[in-house]
C-alpha cells in the first residue's frame, strides 16, 4: 500500500470503521511511513477539534416553541393520535377545499376576519399546493402603526378561528415584529396623482423557504386607476431588516390572479402595501393571500 492509498482510509481509521485486511495494510504502511503517521495524527487532531467545536451548542438558540406547544401541535397533526385523543379530524382534502373557498370567497368571509390575522402554515402537509394561507389587512395603518405589535393576540381572539379548519391546523407561536415599512413611509411613485401608499398589511408568517404569493380578490383596478402592490419581507430573526421582494402594478380587477412569484427568505413576515383606492372596501378586506 502506498501513501495515497493509505491516506484514502484516514477517515475510516479515525472513526474505527476500518477493519480486517485493509486495516492491517494501513497499519503496516503507517509503521514504516513517518509522513503518513504525521498526516494521520494531524487529521485526528482536526477531527477532535471539529468534534469539540460542534458539540459545544452554546450558540444554538433555545426552542422557539415550548415542548408543550410543540407536542400539542404534533398530536393535532397526527390523525391516529388525534383520534385516540378524541379530537376532530379534518381531512387534508377538506382543508384544501377550505383554502380554496377562502381564496375565492374572501369577500363573504371578510366579516370574521380580524384587522390582522396571521396564520402559520400547516407544516405537516408535504404537498405544496396549499401550504399556507395568511390573511390580514390593516385598513387604517397610518393612524395605528403599532397594531402589528400583537398579531398573535389577534389570532387568538379572532372569532372565526374556532370554526376554521385552517385556524385549527395552526398553533405555531412565532410572530412577526411590528411593521415599520420603509415603503410606506416613502411610497413609490404611482400613476395616481395624489394617491399614496396607505396600506401596511401584515400578511403572513411564511414557513417555507420560497413562496409564490397569490391574491384572490375582486378589485376595482383599471388602466386609469391602477393599483401598485409591493410585497416586502422581514426575516423573523432580524426584524430590523426589511426589503422589497416584488412589486407589480395591477390594471384590472379579477379573481384569483397571481400577484407575484418571488423568492422569499425562510420564516419571514410578508407584507403587502398598495395604493389601491379599494383599500377599505370589503373586497380588499376579504383578500386572501396564499403562499405556496
Amino acid at each position, binding site marked *: 500500500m502506498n501513501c495515497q492509498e493509505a491516506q484514502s482510509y484516514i477517515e475510516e481509521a479515525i472513526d474505527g470503521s476500518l477493519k480486517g485486511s485493509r486495516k492491517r495494510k494501513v497499519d503496516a504502511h503507517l509503521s514504516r511511513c513517518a509522513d503518513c503517521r504525521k498526516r494521520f495524527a494531524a487529521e485526528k487532531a482536526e477531527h477532535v477539534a471539529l*468534534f469539540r467545536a460542534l458539540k459545544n451548542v452554546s450558540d444554538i438558540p433555545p426552542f422557539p416553541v415550548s415542548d408543550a406547544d410543540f407536542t400539542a401541535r404534533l398530536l393535532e397533526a397526527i390523525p391516529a393520535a388525534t383520534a385516540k385523543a378524541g379530537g376532530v379530524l379534518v381531512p387534508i382534502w377538506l382543508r384544501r377545499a377550505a383554502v380554496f373557498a377562502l381564496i375565492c370567497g374572501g369577500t363573504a368571509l371578510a366579516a370574521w376576519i380580524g384587522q390582522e390575522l396571521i396564520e402559520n402554515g400547516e407544516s405537516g402537509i408535504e404537498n405544496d399546493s396549499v401550504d399556507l394561507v395568511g390573511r390580514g389587512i390593516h385598513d387604517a395603518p397610518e393612524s395605528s402603526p403599532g397594531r402589528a405589535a400583537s398579531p398573535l393576540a389577534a389570532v387568538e381572539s379572532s372569532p372565526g378561528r374556532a370554526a376554521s379548519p385552517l385556524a385549527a391546523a395552526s398553533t405555531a407561536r412565532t410572530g412577526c415584529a411590528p411593521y415599520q415599512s420603509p415603503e410606506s413611509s416613502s411610497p413609490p411613485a404611482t400613476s395616481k396623482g395624489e394617491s399614496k401608499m396607505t396600506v401596511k398589511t401584515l400578511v403572513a408568517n411564511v414557513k417555507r423557504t420560497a413562496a409564490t404569493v397569490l391574491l384572490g380578490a375582486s378589485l376595482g383596478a383599471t388602466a386609469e386607476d391602477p393599483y401598485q402592490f409591493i410585497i416586502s419581507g422581514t426575516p423573523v430573526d432580524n426584524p430590523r431588516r426589511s426589503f422589497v421582494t416584488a412589486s407589480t402594478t395591477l390594471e384590472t380587477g379579477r379573481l384569483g390572479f397571481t400577484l407575484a412569484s418571488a423568492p422569499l427568505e425562510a420564516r419571514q413576515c410578508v407584507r403587502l402595501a398598495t395604493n389601491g383606492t379599494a383599500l377599505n372596501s370589503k373586497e380588499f378586506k376579504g383578500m386572501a393571500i396564499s403562499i405556496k
Partner: protein
Amino acid sequence: MEIEDEIKQRPEAGARRLVAEYRERLYQVAYRLCLNAADADDLVFRTMQRAMERIGGYHPTGSFYQWLYAIMVNFRRMDLRRKAANMLDFTDELPEVASDAPAPSETLAAAEDASAVRAAVDSLPDIFREVVVFRYFEDMSVPEIAQLLGLPEGSVKSRLSRAKLRLRAHLAGTIEVLDAFKQDGTKK
C-alpha cells in the same frame, strides 16, 4: 417499552416521549443544517410527524436516531430543492479551494476559539455541511453517514475532504474572496 412500541400502542404518550427525549438533539442537528431556529424547529416538527405516521415502517436495524435523521435529511433536501428552484444560488458554482490549502495542523486543529470553527462550518455549502454535522456532531462513521445520506462511502469521504479544505481555508482567512462573491450572487 421501546419508543417505537409506545408510539404504536399509545400515540399520545409516544408523542410526548418523542418530544421529551429526542427533540433537543434533533433540534441541534437541524439547527446546524438550517442555521436558524425557526426552520430547525419546523424541520424537527415535520420529522417527528412523519416518524409517528410511518412508525410501522421502522425496523430497528440501526438506532432510532438514525431513522429520524434519515427522515430529517429527506425533508431538508426537499426544502433545499424547493429553495434552489426559486432562488439564485451560486453555491454550486463556487470554485474549489486551491489544493495548496494549509495543512490540517496549522489551522483547524489549532483554532482555539470553537466559535470560529462553528462559524467556518456554518459557512459551508449545504452538501458539505450535511456530512460535517453528522460526522462531527453525531460522531458517525463513514459507513453510517453513507447509509444515512444514501451515498457511496467514497462520496462521503470526498465531501468530508473537500469540506475540510474549505474549513481550513476559511480559518486561515483565505476564503474571504469566495464568500464575498457568494454574497454578491445571492443578493441579485
